[in-house]
């Protein structure tokens, strides 16, 4: 299957999963006995957070691959994943805030889960900033890769913040040793999983599209027919910088 076909199939599957999420999350699943309708925000808030974790894991893997191979294709993969992760983390914070107002009674509070999530967001915004500091693409890629590897410590910090410290945010329901059994009604869990599938497919679709744009930008400009021959330039990069 060609690259474009994979992209199209992913796009269609993401749209189908999103439609299933809307039906399951808004119509099939009942409102929560305590939280009421606001609880439905869980079906998008939790997937946004999980897929952000996944994106940052991809940044880690691609950064290590760049440091080993020194191939800018890995750097582009890391960049696209980081951009997705930053967007999804921002989305998770906003959706969580909208949920927090009716259920907690406040838009925001300085509890460890919320603080570590903001730190996570800032570190990866910094990661995207570091990429533009130097002129040489390899210098940028190397520095970014170091941040991309070190920054990943934030992910377990965010996830376990609700276990290690006292928080207002509730502890995990699904991603915990005991699993989701008996803590969430099955139909709610199905809606949540539909959300996870929809967000993962949608993120994969966006990722491929973004990668295509980044690769095109990095490729040398095409030589138009009839134009003067372009003198070939060989760039020799010293080691040790």
């Amino acid at each position, binding site marked *: 299957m060609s690259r474009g076909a994979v992209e199209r199939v992913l796009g269609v599957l993401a749209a189908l999963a999103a439609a299933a999420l809307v039906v399951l999350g808004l119509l099939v*699943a*009942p*409102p*929560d*006995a*305590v*939280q*009421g309708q606001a*609880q439905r925000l*869980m079906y998008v808030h939790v997937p946004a957070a999980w897929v952000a974790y996944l994106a940052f894991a991809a940044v880690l893997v691609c950064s290590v691959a760049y440091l080993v191979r020194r191939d800018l294709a890995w750097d582009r993969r890391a960049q696209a994943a980081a951009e997705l992760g930053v967007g999804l983390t921002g989305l998770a914070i906003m959706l969580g805030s909208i949920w927090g107002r*009716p*259920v*907690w*009674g*406040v838009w925001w*509070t*300085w*509890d*460890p889960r919320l603080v570590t999530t903001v730190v996570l967001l800032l570190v990866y915004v910094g990661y995207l900033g570091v990429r533009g500091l130097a002129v040489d693409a390899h210098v940028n890629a190397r520095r970014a890769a170091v941040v991309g590897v070190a920054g990943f410590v934030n992910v377990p910090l965010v996830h376990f913040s609700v276990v290690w*410290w*006292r*928080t*207002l945010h*509730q*502890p*995990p*329901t699904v991603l915990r040793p005991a699993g989701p059994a008996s*803590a*969430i*009604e099955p*139909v*709610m869990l199905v809606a949540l999983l539909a959300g996870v599938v929809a967000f993962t497919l949608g993120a994969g679709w966006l990722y491929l599209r973004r990668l295509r744009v980044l690769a095109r930008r990095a490729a040398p400009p095409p030589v138009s027919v009839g134009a003067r021959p372009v003198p070939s330039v060989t760039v020799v990069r*010293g080691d*040790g*910088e």
Partner: protein
Amino acid sequence: MTRTARPRTRLVVVGLVSVAALGVLAASGLQDSLVYYRTPSEVAARPRSTTQRVRLGGLVQRGSVREDAGSVRFVLTDGAAEVVVLHRGDPPGVFQEGQGALVEGTFDGRRLFRSDLLVVRHSNEYQGADGETYRPPDAAVGAATP
């Protein structure tokens, strides 16, 4: 190479300073602010200041909620110790007996805690109303039956 060593040294210095600054912050300030709330047992164990603002967390004791005009009074418990809370203002919509809650405010005398911020701490359990007609939970607040 001396030409590229300079920026690298600068990077290392910036890195070391950032790590040191983070370490100092973590050792001093964060130590206390990482404790997001105190429990009734903890405040029972230490002398109570009537001026220092405290954030208290626990369960709203069943049968203890009394709502008056513009205020709500309830007992916050952690199973071992209890604090009587008088909160000025309306409780959030999902405030319920038997659920977690956080209050911010100061102690007034030995037993009463005056709160001006009441936040509901939701559990990690999700359950539909099981075929019953859905009823907004705030209708249950104030019902004295446990």
